[in-house]
């Protein structure tokens, strides 16, 4: 935040013509422009998303065909991971832990917040940039370094972290620690987390300040597009929920490195031997600190997705969103409630029935605003003439798919059914329904919707539809069988479920999931081709190809440095579509009459 740079950066009124004095490195690599940073986030996190998906495609082989050598690529992994092409259980555990970590912390959240939030939010509020451009750049680079740190885990002796993405103590404290060798995968995981938390902390401060301070003239809070509201609430969740995990990571680091016993109970026996810890710690403490973050994190994964879907739905139904204020109130209430439901992840830990009753109650309450939001979006479709373009298809698929994910969560929020379902594939099915056809479909909707803004060209419709139908069919075939596998009692972390009779009985369903996962992978190929080819070959479009009302479409495409050649003034709400008496079926926010 050095001052002199700040002045060269935006010290002139005439920022519309670009800044020839910025070299390649300052313009595209160490840029402070929110649009470049947004694109950097997008590229990096899409890469991580793809990498995390590759990990799970490997895991699906072991699950479908336990103990069989992985075809084609099995020999590439070497003796420490896959001797003879057969996956070792330790490596399987690393893949599981890293898949979860990468998808959540390096893939989906940076895409929703870092990429979409960074690129779209300042444009939608009519701001020239984020409130703290340098801090914005820093938060990207801290995220980038955190990602690299996470990946180095694969290359150290003992492999990457393998205690699950939740890193439950005491397993995570004793894992991969032998005498004098504690700098292994799990320690690297903790260090990586500290980087990622710092990055999202810097980002969330920036987002909140930007939304509060830099709204264009006339853009009151209840004229903000719903996407901006979603980013606003999400930023508060990141700001306040992440620090306890940072504290937890520091404590676990101390347990591993300095030999403390924060999470190590007295008299713990590891591998038949009394551990060298002094004891007195509490494994439950880790779970409380972890889930205090990780439950709000669930809403960090879904709220911006709801925001994107709302934008796409309002635009393609050519109608205002049904119940805009209700949506906003529900969103804020959801954000608040998400801080007091965390222990519903811990019904099985023996924390007591009174605690369980409290958290079961709050969990039931939090489902109300979620259902309100979904219902309002569904009602928005009523009576409209829907434009079925690719972003809208993904947004429409989001609604029922997210509903399945949400409703299957209710039995998990009540202690009695949770006793049966806890830690089974049912849980995996539930939250993957929320994240894959929920958050990730919203991400796809967002990419197809805003790609013309970033590049000035549309993505190909045919490839987009191929991508859409493949993804919808694939995602359902992957995750629907998991509910039945889970209800049959198969635990989520098993390396080979066929060793148990109840697992062997449903092995066919697990194989269906695996084949569907590879099909889902194939369905992404049209998207990847489309994404890169359309940069040059896509159909050129005007500044406002979707005929949308919000401010990001009121700038030239791609938006210049400083975003708006003329600082916009806002006269109306965000979704004035099909206004009676208006000359066109949409009235942009910055139009007076």
């Amino acid at each position: 935040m050095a001052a002199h740079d700040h002045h060269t950066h935006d010290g002139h009124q005439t920022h519309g013509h670009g800044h020839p004095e910025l070299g390649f490195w300052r313009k595209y690599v160490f840029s402070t422009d929110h649009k470049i940073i947004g694109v950097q986030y997008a590229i990096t996190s899409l890469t991580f998303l793809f990498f995390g998906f590759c990990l799970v495609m490997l895991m699906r082989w072991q699950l479908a065909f336990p103990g069989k050598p992985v075809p084609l690529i099995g020999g590439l992994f070497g003796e420490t991971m896959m001797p003879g092409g057969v996956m070792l259980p330790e490596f399987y555990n690393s893949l599981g832990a890293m898949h979860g970590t990468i998808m959540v912390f390096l893939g989906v959240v940076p895409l929703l917040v870092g990429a979409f939030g960074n690129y779209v939010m300042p444009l939608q509020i009519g701001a020239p940039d984020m409130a703290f451009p340098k801090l914005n750049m820093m938060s990207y680079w801290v995220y980038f370094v955190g990602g690299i740190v996470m990946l180095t885990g694969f290359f150290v002796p003992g492999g990457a972290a393998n205690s699950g993405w939740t890193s439950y103590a005491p397993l995570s404290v004793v894992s991969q620690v032998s005498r004098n060798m504690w700098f292994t995968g799990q320690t690297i995981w903790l260090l990586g987390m500290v980087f990622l938390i710092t990055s999202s902390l810097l980002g969330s401060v920036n987002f909140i300040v930007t939304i509060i301070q830099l709204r264009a003239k006339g853009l009151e809070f209840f004229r903000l597009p719903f996407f901006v509201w979603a980013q606003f609430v999400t930023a508060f969740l990141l700001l306040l929920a992440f620090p306890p995990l940072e504290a937890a990571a520091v404590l676990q680091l101390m347990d591993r490195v300095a030999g403390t016993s924060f999470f190590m109970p007295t008299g713990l026996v590891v591998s038949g031997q009394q551990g060298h810890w002094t004891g007195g710690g509490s494994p439950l403490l880790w779970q409380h600190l972890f889930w205090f973050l990780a439950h709000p994190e669930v809403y960090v994964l879904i709220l911006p997705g709801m925001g994107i879907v709302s934008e796409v739905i309002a635009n393609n139904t050519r109608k205002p969103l049904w119940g805009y204020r209700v949506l906003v109130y529900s969103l804020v209430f959801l954000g608040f409630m998400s801080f007091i439901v965390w222990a519903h992840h811990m019904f099985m830990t023996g924390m007591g029935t009174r605690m369980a009753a409290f958290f079961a109650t709050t969990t039931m309450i939090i489902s109300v605003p979620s259902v309100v939001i979904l219902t309002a979006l569904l009602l928005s479709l009523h009576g409209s003439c829907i434009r079925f373009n690719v972003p809208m298809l993904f947004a429409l698929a989001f609604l029922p798919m997210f509903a399945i994910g949400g409703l299957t969560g209710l039995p998990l929020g009540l202690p009695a059914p949770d006793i049966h379902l806890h830690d089974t594939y049912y849980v995996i099915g539930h939250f993957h329904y929320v994240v894959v056809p929920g958050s990730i479909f919203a991400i796809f909707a967002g990419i197809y919707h805003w790609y013309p803004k970033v590049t000035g060209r549309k993505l190909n419709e045919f490839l987009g539809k191929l991508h859409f139908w493949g993804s919808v069919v694939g995602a359902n075939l992957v995750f629907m069988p998991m509910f039945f596998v889970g209800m049959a009692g198969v635990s989520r972390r098993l390396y080979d479920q066929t060793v148990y009779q109840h697992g062997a009985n449903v092995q066919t369903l697990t194989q269906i999931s695996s084949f569907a996962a590879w099909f889902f992978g194939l369905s992404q190929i049209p998207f990847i081709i489309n994404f890169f080819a359309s940069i040059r070959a896509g159909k050129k479009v005007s500044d406002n190809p979707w005929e949308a009302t919000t401010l990001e479409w009121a700038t030239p495409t791609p938006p210049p440095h400083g975003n708006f050649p003329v600082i916009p003034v806002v006269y109306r709400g965000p979704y004035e579509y099909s206004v009676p008496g208006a000359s066109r079926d949409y009235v942009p926010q910055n139009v007076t009459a």
Partner: protein
Amino acid sequence: MSSAALPYTVEPHPLTGVYSGKLGTWLFLASEVMLFGALFSSYVLLRVGAGDAWPSGEATHLSVPIGTFNTLVLIVSSVTMVMAWASLKMGNLAKGRMFLALTIALALVFIVVKLLLEYIPKFRGHHLPSTNTFYALYFTMTGLHALHIIGGIVVIGYFLFPGAALWRTDPEYYTNRIECTGLYWHFVDLVWIFLFPVLYLT
């Protein structure tokens, strides 16, 4: 106004009544409250959970006089920090920088006392983080606090030397930055005000 493109870097926003940097600092401090709040909560949970097994007597010994001295050092440093900001507000850069230097000096006194009179003798006496849960908490919490002090020294040092160039072009902007630094500095002091009774006086 210092910059045409980004509004409210210096002048307050009509709705919030503060400039962006100050709002950002308050939000950052809110997250810091959650960080240290989680640590204090962990302390409570571990201590209540331990019951009679909680270490006491010689196994939890910390020097109250040294702790009191350091508490006073930090309180005085908070005063000098405010004096630095007040001097700049009255347009006196030389005096402002003098108080900034004084703040850094006091912070260094705190760190040196912590290190030479507390940490090193503890290590020599084999009172390590791994000795018992009390020392584990003591070293983790005061260590994290000390890192915050060192971070403060770096920031104040920046504004004392290279960052002070901003005074020539935009004194109000510079003064605001010292105000934000001061907010952070008072927060770090406040954390110590909680740490001192919790760790030393129990």
